[in-house]
């Protein structure tokens, strides 16, 4: 049999100050003698306290969601580990899709611009795990990044980079966040830093984004130089796309 509360309406009336003085007096008296009423009233009070804990409820919601999503089994997320084979598969699929899309674009001569090419090829799908250093600020900055609050993210990353100039991950994310906020010169600076430091973990994507930044900035010679380097590398995941862009740029 389904159990129900017996005194909800009475308690509601009491809590909403809708009782007369006489009714309040009787209610208070009943609380002392009626155990069920007292229990229900106690429950009501506890619920009020518990439901005011917005942050804990939100935290619990996230915990339950994570548990039910089977986070312990599935390790795939928005951020993809560069070292994982799955990443290469995803990148290959992405490159293939982009190639098909690119084919359509390139069969229409003259129907493009550097900006259009950039928009066609720019994606943040190459974003890599950044938390290797375990830097606290990185976590906050990445949270902003994931929330697509790129403006706030660039501010946090710039703070990190002032004290941790060798943090390639921060340089990389800062570059992407700068692209998103159209600060292309800043983005170029970030990606150049990674390329100059030859961090193998990020360099492939940094070169790719660097080329795209030059492209959108109408620095065609530099863009071509970047894409030529990418196109010349046998195993570069951006090779096919770089070749496509080069073909298009050479026709201009």
């Amino acid at each position, binding site marked *: 049999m*389904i*159990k*129900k*509360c017996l005194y*909800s*309406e009475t308690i*509601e009336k009491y809590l909403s100050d809708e009782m007369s003085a006489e009714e309040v007096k009787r209610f208070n008296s009943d609380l002392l003698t009626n155990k*069920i009423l007292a*229990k*229900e009233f106690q*429950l009501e009070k*506890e*619920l*009020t306290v*518990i*439901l*005011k*804990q*917005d*942050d*804990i*409820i*939100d*935290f*619990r*919601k*996230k*915990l*339950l969601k*994570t*548990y039910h999503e089977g*986070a*312990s089994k599935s*390790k795939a*997320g928005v*951020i993809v*580990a560069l070292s994982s084979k799955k990443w290469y598969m995803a990148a290959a699929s992405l490159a293939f899709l982009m190639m098909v899309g690119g084919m359509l674009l390139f069969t229409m001569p003259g129907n493009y611009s550097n900006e259009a090419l950039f928009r066609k090829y720019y994606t943040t799908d190459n974003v890599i*795990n950044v*938390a*290797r*250093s*375990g*830097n*606290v600020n*990185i*976590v*906050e900055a*990445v*949270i902003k990044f*994931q929330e697509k609050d790129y403006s706030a993210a660039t501010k946090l990353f710039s703070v990190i980079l002032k004290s941790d100039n060798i943090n390639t991950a921060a340089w990389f994310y800062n570059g992407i966040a700068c692209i998103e906020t159209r600060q292309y010169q800043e983005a170029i600076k970030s990606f150049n830093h990674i390329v100059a430091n030859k961090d193998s973990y990020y360099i492939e994507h940094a070169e790719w984004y660097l080329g795209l930044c030059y492209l959108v900035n109408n620095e065609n010679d530099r863009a071509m130089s970047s894409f030529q380097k990418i196109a010349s590398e046998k195993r570069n995941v951006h090779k096919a796309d770089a070749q496509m862009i080069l073909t298009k740029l050479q026709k201009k």
Partner: protein
Amino acid sequence: MIHYSDEAIIEGLRLRSDYIIKFIYQEYFPVIKYLVNSNGGYDEDAEDVFQDGLIIIYKKLKDNELVLSSSYKTFLYSICRNLWLQKLNKKTAFNRSFSEIEQYIELPGDILGEVQNEENEKYRLFQVHFLTLGEDCQKVLKLFMHKTSLRDVAQIMGYKTEKYAKLRKFLCKEELKKRILNDPKCQNFFNHD
């Protein structure tokens, strides 16, 4: 595999970061699950213990009262271990010796107090039931708990009248109480009979 430092985990928890929560589950839940399973508990018990442990840490963080005297992993393990031991003590069926899985520390008094606070389990159950309500009901109840006026609730929720807002609040709370009343796990805290 990503590796967050203890400092990053703590900060991520303070921010209730989805990524840190996922990381914690991936990295530490299996150990707690093994601990509970090895000591007479089911996966569901392990989940409860793990979540309660994290909530205790979060509450201490929120109040700026958390001082890590060990690695985060050992700290979390020690809290969960204590939570499970406490539950086992209430069970008469468990007579075997307790199998340790990891190294643990003696918890500081304030954390131990939280672990032993029986209200925590009640709060978890009530909150879990609240989270099973529809989004609409959750929102209405939250608004009322924060003493939002009927007029504002009606406006925020898009209800035509204040009277309807009041009715929704009543019905949502009734549904929540009904779920609590009919949950056998809640009988320890709220026995209506």
